[in-house]
């Protein structure tokens, strides 16, 4: 799980072009949207594609994303429970 969290942090930084942010700067429970990393709706789409492409998880209901993408920890938990890739 710790490895997956680190992997997610690195992917988020790379795919969302978060300049001057390192994996160490993102705590597992930090909110990804709003006051945390400040991600927005376009980033949410990027993360949905990442789940599908890298972990084989298709989000049938986009509303699910609100909880799944709350933090790196919630993302990692969801991936661990649902991954097929």
């Amino acid at each position, binding site marked *: 799980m710790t490895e997956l969290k680190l992997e997610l942090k690195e992917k988020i930084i790379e*795919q*969302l*072009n*978060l300049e001057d942010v390192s994996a160490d700067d993102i705590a597992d429970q930090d909110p990804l949207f709003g006051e945390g990393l*400040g991600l927005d709706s*376009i980033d949410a*789409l*990027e993360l949905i*594609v990442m789940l599908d*492409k890298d972990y084989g998880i298709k989000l049938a209901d986009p509303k699910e994303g609100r909880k799944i993408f709350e933090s790196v920890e919630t993302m990692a938990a969801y991936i661990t429970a649902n991954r097929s890739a």
Partner: protein
Amino acid sequence: MTRPVYINGIGSVSAQKTFDNSVFLEDVTYRSDTIINVISPDYKSYIPPAAARRMAKGIKMSTVSAKTAIQEADLEENKIDAIIVGTGLGCIGDSEKFVRDIIDNNEQYLTPTRFIQSSHNTVAGQLALGMGCKGHNFTYVHSAISFESALLDAKLQLENKEADNILVGGVDELVDHHIDTHRLIEHIKQEPVATMAVLKSGTKGAIFSEGAHFFVLSGEKSHSCHAELVGVSTFNNLSKNQVSEKARSFLEENNLTSDSIDLIILGYNGDVEFDGYYDGLANGLFSNTCQIYYKHLVGEFDTASGFAFWLGNKIIRHHNIPPVLRLNSVEVSEPKLILCYNQYRGENHSFTLLRKC
């Protein structure tokens, strides 16, 4: 009755250190290469990190160049009535990445960011979003006359009082696939050439580069005014022996003759196949006129003539012609009328006329 058009602010990001408007080619960078990249300003001091992370290089260069021009014009951003951009290739870097994603992922998993960034009008759109400008927003894509097309649109709108202040510019970025393909077809020189040897290279192709040049054009002359934009004219196809005739008629349309021109800025790029287009003017109609060139310093790209326009404005303001630009030894102490001529590979020719005011 139309009104004059003034250039009240200028901005440049190029392969020379031109982003700082307080200096004028005082510290020239010399290279020996087949491609040259821009000297980047510290983008973070112009663009908030949250906005910058989705910006392609062309958008970053344009944002800095546009902000510099608006700042120099001493204009509030909400006073800009229209944004008009010329670009040969738009944000080609993200276009390439988007297409590569389509191929690599078998048309699946396409993400929005690269798609948003990959259209030609991304730059004009992003500038408008950043400034909150809801006015006319237009992008001209027409190879080597993209910038002049934007300039002509702005000039007509200002003359006819459809707008008071227009941000107009030209931008192109240099990316890997573009370099690879143009190297393959020998539009890029095969061997590196030193900056001051470009004209004498005797080889095919040009040194490729990139840049962003933006200007605030206004119907009213401000205290920051550099020059008046007197005329712009473009031609898609001209033979070598038609260039002088077209230059003469362009000047006649503006009630001028070749003798009236104090300085001519020529777009020589060292391509042995096409530099002859400039020779006709340099050795004929303007042989007794002070001549300068610039692509040895900033390379060739679709909107490289934006640098010539920037240069003309700078020279009128500073009364100074940096020796590194000189083609001949004809002296002129204070240029008042400057003619720019550019073409690329024998196509898309442009004449632009600036006057001290």
